[in-house]
């Protein structure tokens, strides 16, 4: 077992950052801790590293208790959102730092350090930058150097705290694919924190979705995306529309917007009183078809991008977001103020807690 987290809790004053968290991470896995800010994901990562101490619970790294282990003896590599490269050192010295600060007995020879640094520079594809200073590098390059520096000490666990959070969208995409490939190459147990669901879904072997100091769901990207266990996970992994519905012959019938208070008809089938529909899972037509349909008026159309985003107002006077393909948009000749009919292709419902 790579990392065993059992019963970890942590509070900062009155704020509960983590509440009795249990999580097992296999050796060699690439795990994403995903959640909104304040969900406790960064705190959990810092507790694994030893940069923060847990109020309760224990962390075992490769079957060793970490309770009395100092940060420097934990063999973890940590990558920070703002790189934390040593400004006064060259790229070479940054990467060599972890090897050079070792006590003399275990410190590698100079030539060995040199070879190691250059092999890491090749790994992060920056071999020509060894004598540059961090200030001379771009954000993406800096984060790759920070990663090389963390890998230099051959950590058992690599921890990344929003590693691409400070980069622009394009570089971010490039780097996360690169991280995925790198992990396939070196297989070090990796945990990374992100609030970007797209990033987590694309990079991780498994996702840990966190909220309010607890874990909401653990699973593969496919699993959490298609089988979210609760409305929070469903909501966090993409845009949703919420509706109220009533079961008729085993088929949910949408009868209004979900955010309203429950009325008498709800009590008949409380377990299916709310349904969620993703914006791209609507069939849009100009005339009513099928039994489940919603009438709406188009308020706004944004045709820029791979899909056309429609903003509708339903017959219950609530906003509905709908995404349709460009082809569909062309063929229906949609305009603002037109009335259209929506048929949900897929509805999600959760048992009320």
């Amino acid at each position, binding site marked *: 077992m790579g990392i065993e987290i059992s019963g970890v809790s942590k509070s900062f004053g009155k704020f509960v950052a983590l509440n009795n968290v249990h999580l097992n991470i296999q050796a060699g896995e690439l795990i994403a801790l995903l959640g909104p800010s304040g969900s406790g994901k960064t705190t959990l990562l810092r507790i694994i*590293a*030893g*940069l923060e101490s847990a109020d309760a619970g224990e962390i075992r790294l490769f079957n060793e208790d970490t309770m009395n282990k*100092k*940060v*420097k*003896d*934990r063999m*973890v*590599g*940590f990558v*920070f959102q*703002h790189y*934390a*490269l*040593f*400004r*006064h050192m060259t790229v070479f010295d940054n990467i060599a*730092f*972890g090897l050079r*600060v*070792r006590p003399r007995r275990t410190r590698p020879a100079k030539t060995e350090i040199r070879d190691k640094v250059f092999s890491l520079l090749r790994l992060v594809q920056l071999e020509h930058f060894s004598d540059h200073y*961090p*200030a001379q590098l*771009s*954000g*993406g*390059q800096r984060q790759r150097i*920070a990663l090389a*520096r*963390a890998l*230099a*000490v051959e950590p058992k666990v690599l921890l990344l705290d929003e590693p691409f959070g*400070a*980069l*622009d969208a*394009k*570089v971010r995409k*490039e780097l996360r694919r690169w991280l995925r490939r790198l992990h396939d190459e070196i297989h070090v147990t990796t945990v990374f924190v992100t609030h970007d669901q797209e990033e987590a879904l694309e990079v991780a072997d498994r996702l840990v979705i966190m909220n309010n100091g607890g874990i909401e769901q653990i699973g593969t990207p496919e699993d959490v995306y298609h089988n979210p266990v609760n409305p929070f996970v469903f909501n966090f992994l993409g845009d949703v529309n919420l509706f109220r519905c009533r079961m008729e012959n085993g088929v949910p019938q949408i009868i209004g917007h979900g955010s309203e208070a429950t009325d008498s008809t709800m009590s008949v089938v409380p377990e299916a009183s709310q349904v969620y529909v993703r914006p791209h899972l609507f069939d849009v037509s100009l005339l009513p078809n099928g039994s489940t349909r919603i009438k709406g008026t188009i308020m706004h159309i944004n045709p820029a991008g791979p899909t056309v985003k429609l903003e509708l107002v339903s017959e219950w006077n609530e906003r509905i977001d709908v995404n349709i393909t460009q082809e569909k948009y062309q063929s229906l000749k949609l305009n603002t103020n037109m009335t259209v009919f929506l048929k949900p292709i897929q509805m999600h419902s959760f048992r009320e807690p």
Partner: protein
Amino acid sequence: MKDYRSKNEDVPVRLKTHPLTEPWPIRLLLTAVAFIFLGLFLIMPLVIVFYNALAEGFIAFKNVITNSEALSSIRLTLIVIGLAVPMNIVFGILAAWAVTKFSFRGKQILISFIDLPLTVSPVISGTVFILIFGLHGVLGEWLNSIHVKIVFAVPGIVLATIFVTLPYVARELIPLMQAQGSSDEEAAVTLGASGWKTFFKITLPNIKWGLFYGVILCTARAIGEFGAVSVVSGHIRGKTVTMPLEVEILYNEYNFSAAFSIASLLALLSLAAMGLKKLTQNKTEKVALEHEKFLNITGV
């Protein structure tokens, strides 16, 4: 003419002056007032000091500054700096470290109290030391019984100087270290560095220019300190008289040219400190700017 041209030609109209720039007579007036003030209160006294110091010729100047009392005052001032400044470097770094890297009870109190010596009159600080260490003070009898002399002796002068110059290093470092945060140090410990190695290889290089700047300010203040030192010194010539005190004694003896000679040495030290300060200030500002740039840049 120029105004017409910009209208006739097809060029975008630009404001001739910055919207916050005043008309030239006001600018001239304000600049002139600033320069007159500077000249009257800073340049002129400085010129007079050097003029009077050398009024009786360079030989006389040399004789004054090489007589035994003058030399002793110079020696004492150097000793005081040599003791007070390192103490305040240690205190300043410790205080800044504690304030910026940990959270603890009484942190706000510590921050407020660091500034206390700046707001309390030095004469009061000196008097406090007499009340603590003087013969009739709190610790006086005990100190007397073990034959340790603090007041009216060098230790008292050093203590008073440390007190007065206490805030300078810490005040320089706290905002700098706050801006830099702890992640560099955190990165170092995750890479296996010990606390000492982290401090000497990461923290110290990061704060060195700010520290140097603080040390210069602290030294300049220590050289010139008069009030607190005057109270605890006892004015024993050749023994407990620092350079500023020597200037006062000579002046009271109507030995003006000698007084100005020592004063000119003090002024020279101040000018040197100012020069160094300017140099390091540019450097610290550059470092701060780079730090900002460092955080802002994104993209490959």
